[in-house]
C-alpha cells in the first residue's frame, strides 16, 4: 500500500499550474492535483462592490443570486439541480473585488460544469418575476448577516466612517434602502457591463490534464464575444487627517470595540515590502495563543474576553489593519482601547524580537504546505490573486518575501501606520435586548 500511494502521487511539475488566454480574453489557469479523482472549477469575474455606484449598492451580490435564475437553455433553478444530479456541490460568493462561482465534482463531470457556466456567462434571462422574489431573499440575507448581528453591524458602520471616498465604505451586500429600490434593470445593466470572457478568470484544480481543460475551455467559452469594459476610475482614498470615532447603539449585553488603521495592499508582489511586514506584524500580535495581544489583554492583566488582529495583504482597493476586542465584564471599551494602544506603542518603540519573527515565519511556511491539502483552497488562492491585479505566479514570490521581512521593517510599518491620524475607533453601545421594540 505504501508503494501504491507513492506511485499515485504525481511528482510536482515545474510548469504546474498552467495558464492560457483564449482569443476572447478569458484567462484559464489549471493546476493538476491527482490526489483524488475530483475537480474544482471556479470562474472569477473582476466585478465586486468596489465597482458599484451609489443608489445601486449590493447589485454585484444581487446579480450573483440571479445567476442561478435561468437562461434560455437552462430554466431557473436547473443549474443547481443538474450539478446536484452529477453529485456536485456548487455555490458562489461576492466581495468588494470580485464575484466567483464554483463547482466541485467527480473529475468526469467537468464538461457539464463548463457547459453550464459558459452558458450563463452570455445567456442569462434576468426576468422581472424571478428578480422580485430573489431580491427579497437577499434582504433576508442582509437581516440575518448584518442587521441582527451587532458585531457585523459595527464593522459595517466603522468601514462607512473610516473611508470617505473609496467604495470600500459601502457594504458588499448593499444598503437596505438600495436593495428595496433595486430593479431587474439594475441587475441587467451590471450583467452586461461586467460578465464577459475578457473580465474573467477560469480556474480548474484537480485530477485533470491541462491540455484537456484548455480544449474544453475553448469549446465552451471560445465563442463568447468579449465586451468593451468600462474604464475603472482609481477612486484613491484621500489621506485621513485626524482620528475618527463612532458609537453604534444596538440590542446587546456586551460592548465591542473595533480599531481600524489604513494600510497599503500588495501592488507589485516582488518590489513591495510593507504589506509583508504588516503580515508579520499581525502574526506577532495575534498569530498564535502565545502572541502579544492575547497574552497581554486576556491573560497577564485581563481587560478583554477576546482580542484579534487581522490584515489582508491583497485587494483592489485600499487596505485596513483591524483590531477587535470584547471587554471583560466591568471593563469599558476605553480601557481595552488603552491596553491595545499600549501594546501597539510597544512595537513602535521597541520593535519585535528575532524569536517572534522566526515563529511567525515558521507558521506561514508550514501553512503553505498544509493549504495544499485542499484543492478548493488552491483554486481560491489562484482566483483571488488573478482578480486583484496580481498573478498566480506570485504565490511563491509572496512566501519568499514574507520570509525576508526583518524585525526593523516590522517596527517601521508599525510606526508608520499605527498613528492616531490614521485610525478609526468604533464602539458598540449595548441597548436593552428584552421585548420587541426594535423591529425593522
Amino acid at each position: 500500500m505504501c508503494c501504491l500511494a507513492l506511485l499515485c502521487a504525481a511528482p510536482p511539475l515545474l510548469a504546474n499550474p498552467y495558464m492560457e488566454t483564449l482569443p476572447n480574453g478569458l484567462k484559464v489557469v489549471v493546476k493538476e492535483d491527482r490526489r483524488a479523482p475530483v475537480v474544482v472549477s471556479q470562474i472569477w469575474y473582476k466585478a465586486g462592490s468596489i465597482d458599484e455606484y451609489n443608489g445601486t449598492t449590493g447589485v454585484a451580490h444581487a446579480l450573483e443570486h440571479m445567476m442561478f435564475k435561468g437562461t434560455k437553455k437552462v430554466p431557473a433553478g436547473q443549474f443547481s439541480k443538474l450539478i446536484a444530479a452529477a453529485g456536485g456541490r456548487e455555490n458562489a460568493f461576492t466581495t468588494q473585488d470580485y464575484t466567483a462561482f464554483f463547482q466541485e465534482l467527480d473529475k468526469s463531470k467537468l464538461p457539464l460544469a463548463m457547459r453550464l457556466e459558459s452558458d450563463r456567462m452570455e445567456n442569462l434571462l434576468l426576468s422581472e418575476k424571478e428578480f422580485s422574489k430573489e431580491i427579497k431573499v437577499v434582504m433576508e440575507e442582509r437581516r440575518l448577516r448584518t442587521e441582527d448581528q451587532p458585531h457585523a453591524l459595527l464593522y459595517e458602520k466603522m468601514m462607512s466612517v473610516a473611508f470617505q471616498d473609496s467604495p470600500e465604505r459601502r457594504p458588499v451586500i448593499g444598503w437596505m434602502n438600495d436593495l428595496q429600490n433595486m430593479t431587474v434593470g439594475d441587475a441587467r445593466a451590471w450583467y452586461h457591463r461586467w460578465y464577459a470572457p475578457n473580465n474573467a478568470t477560469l480556474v480548474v484544480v484537480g485530477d485533470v490534464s491541462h491540455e484537456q481543460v484548455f480544449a474544453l475551455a475553448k469549446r465552451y467559452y471560445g465563442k463568447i464575444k468579449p465586451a468593451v469594459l468600462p474604464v475603472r476610475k482609481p477612486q484613491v482614498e484621500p489621506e485621513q487627517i485626524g482620528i475618527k470615532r463612532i458609537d453604534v447603539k444596538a440590542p446587546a449585553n456586551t460592548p465591542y470595540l473595533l480599531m481600524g488603521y489604513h494600510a497599503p495592499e500588495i501592488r507589485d508582489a516582488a518590489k513591495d515590502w510593507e504589506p509583508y511586514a504588516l503580515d508579520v506584524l499581525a502574526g506577532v500580535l495575534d498569530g498564535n495563543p502565545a502572541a502579544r495581544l492575547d497574552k497581554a489583554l486576556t491573560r497577564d492583566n485581563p481587560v478583554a474576553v477576546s482580542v484579534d488582529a487581522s490584515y489582508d495583504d491583497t485587494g483592489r482597493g485600499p487596505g485596513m489593519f483591524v483590531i477587535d476586542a470584547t471587554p471583560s465584564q466591568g471593563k469599558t471599551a476605553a480601557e481595552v482601547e488603552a491596553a491595545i494602544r499600549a501594546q501597539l506603542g510597544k512595537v513602535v518603540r521597541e520593535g519585535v524580537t528575532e524569536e517572534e519573527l522566526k515563529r511567525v515565519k515558521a507558521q506561514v511556511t508550514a501553512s503553505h504546505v498544509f493549504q495544499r491539502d485542499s484543492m478548493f483552497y488552491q483554486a481560491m488562492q489562484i482566483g483571488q490573486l488573478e482578480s486583484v491585479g496580481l498573478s498566480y505566479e506570485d504565490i511563491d514570490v509572496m512566501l519568499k518575501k514574507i520570509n525576508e521581512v526583518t524585525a526593523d521593517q516590522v517596527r517601521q510599518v508599525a510606526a508608520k501606520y499605527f498613528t492616531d491620524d490614521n485610525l478609526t475607533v468604533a464602539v458598540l453601545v449595548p441597548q436593552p435586548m428584552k421585548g420587541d421594540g426594535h423591529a425593522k
Partner: protein
Amino acid sequence: MPNKLIAGLFLLAVAGAAHATLPIEHWQSASGAKVLFVENHDMPMVDIKVDFAAGSGRDTAEKAGLAGMTRHLMALGAGDLTEDQISGKLADIGAELGGDFDRDVAGFSLRTLTSQRSEAVDLLAKILDAPKFDQKVLDREKTRQIAQIREAEMDPGHIAAETFDKLLYGDHPYGLRGEGEIDTVRAFTRQNVVDFYRTHYVTDREVIAIVGDLTREQAQAVADKLSAGLAAGKPIPPLPEVKLPTSAETKMIPYPSSQSHILIGYPGVTRDDPDYFPLLVGNYVLGGGGFESRLLNEVREKRGLAYSVYSYFYPLERKGPFEVGLQTRKDQTREALAIVRKTIDDYIAQGPTPKEIAAAKDNLVGGFPLRIDSNRKIVDYLAMIGFYHLPLTYLDDFTKKVNGVTAAQIRDAFSRRINPADMVTVVVGAPSGG
C-alpha cells in the same frame, strides 16, 4: 472555548464508497486505545486526531459546562510547560492544534509537517497525560467563559438553539449547553475538573486516527505515545436513552431583532441506527439537498421568505436532533411557519416521489469522491468510524446502502421516527408568532 461541533451535521450527508475506497489499517495501541490509520505520502504532513467519550453528554445539570472546561484547560499548561510555552512551541514548529467538542466527543487534532512530527506528538502527549489545571488559569477561564455565555445571549440564533435543545431533551444531558450556565461555571472547583479528567481521559473508548506521511511502524509509535500515559480507567457507561416528547411544545421568545429565528424538531437517529440510510436519503429530499429540497423550494424559491432553510439529522450515540430551521422577517413568521409545517407533514404522510429519490441518490452516490478528497476529511472519517464502532467497510458500503433505499423504506422510517404532532417548536423574535 470549544463549540458544539456544527460540522457534525455534514457527516450525515457524508460518506460513501465507489471504488476500493481507502486502505484503512487498524489496531489497538499497547495500552488499549483504538487506532485507525491511512498511510499517504503525497504531502510532507501528518494529521492526527485523539478523541474521548468526554463530550457535554457526560455533564450533569449541576455541573453543566464541566466537560468543555476540562477539554479547554488541558492545553493551557501541562507537565513542565506553561500555556504560553505550549502554544509557543507549537507555533515554532508550525504545528496546528485544534479539536472537536460535541455532545459525545471531546478531543484534539494535530496537524504537523513530517519533519516536526516527533516534537509535535510529544507536546500533544504531554497535554493528554499531564494537564496541570492550574488554579489561576481555571479562575481566569471561568470569568472568560461566563462573559462568553453572556455575549452569546445577544445572538437570536444562539438563543433559539439553546432553547430548542432544552425543550427537545428535557433532563437528558443532550439538553445541556456545552458551554454551561453562568451559575454552574461559577461553581467549578479545581477538584471537579481533575475528577472529570481522571474519569474520562482514559484509554477506554480512546480513539486515535492518523493520516499522512508516515509508515505503519511510525504510526504505531505515535499511537503508543498518545495513549501510554493514560490510565486504562473504568469502562465509560453508555449515555442514558433519550425519551421522546409526548406532546407538542412551542416556545415564543420576544427579541428586538428584525427576523424571527425558527427551529422545529424531534429526537432523531443514533450513529448506528438501522434507519440511518432511509432517513439520510429521505432528508435530502425534505431539506438536506439545498436547491433540490422541498423546504428550500417552498420557502425560498417560491416565496422569497428566507435566505436559509434546511433540515438535518445529527446522528449521535443516542438519538441526536432532527432539526428544521429558518429565519424570516418578523411579520412573515406566521406564514413561514405554516408553510414549513405543511411541507413536513405532507412529506411524512406521503414520502418522496420516485423522481425525488433518484435525484437524492444521484447526488449522494455521485458526490462520494468529494467526501474523501483531502487528508483532513479522511482523518475525520477515521475518528468517527472508530468512536462509533462503525464497520471499517463503512465507506466502501456507503453507495451500496444509499442505492438500496426504497420509497417505502423512507416513508416507513419517517412515519415511525418523527411524530409531527409532538414536535418541538421555538421562535425567537416575533412576540406571538407574527
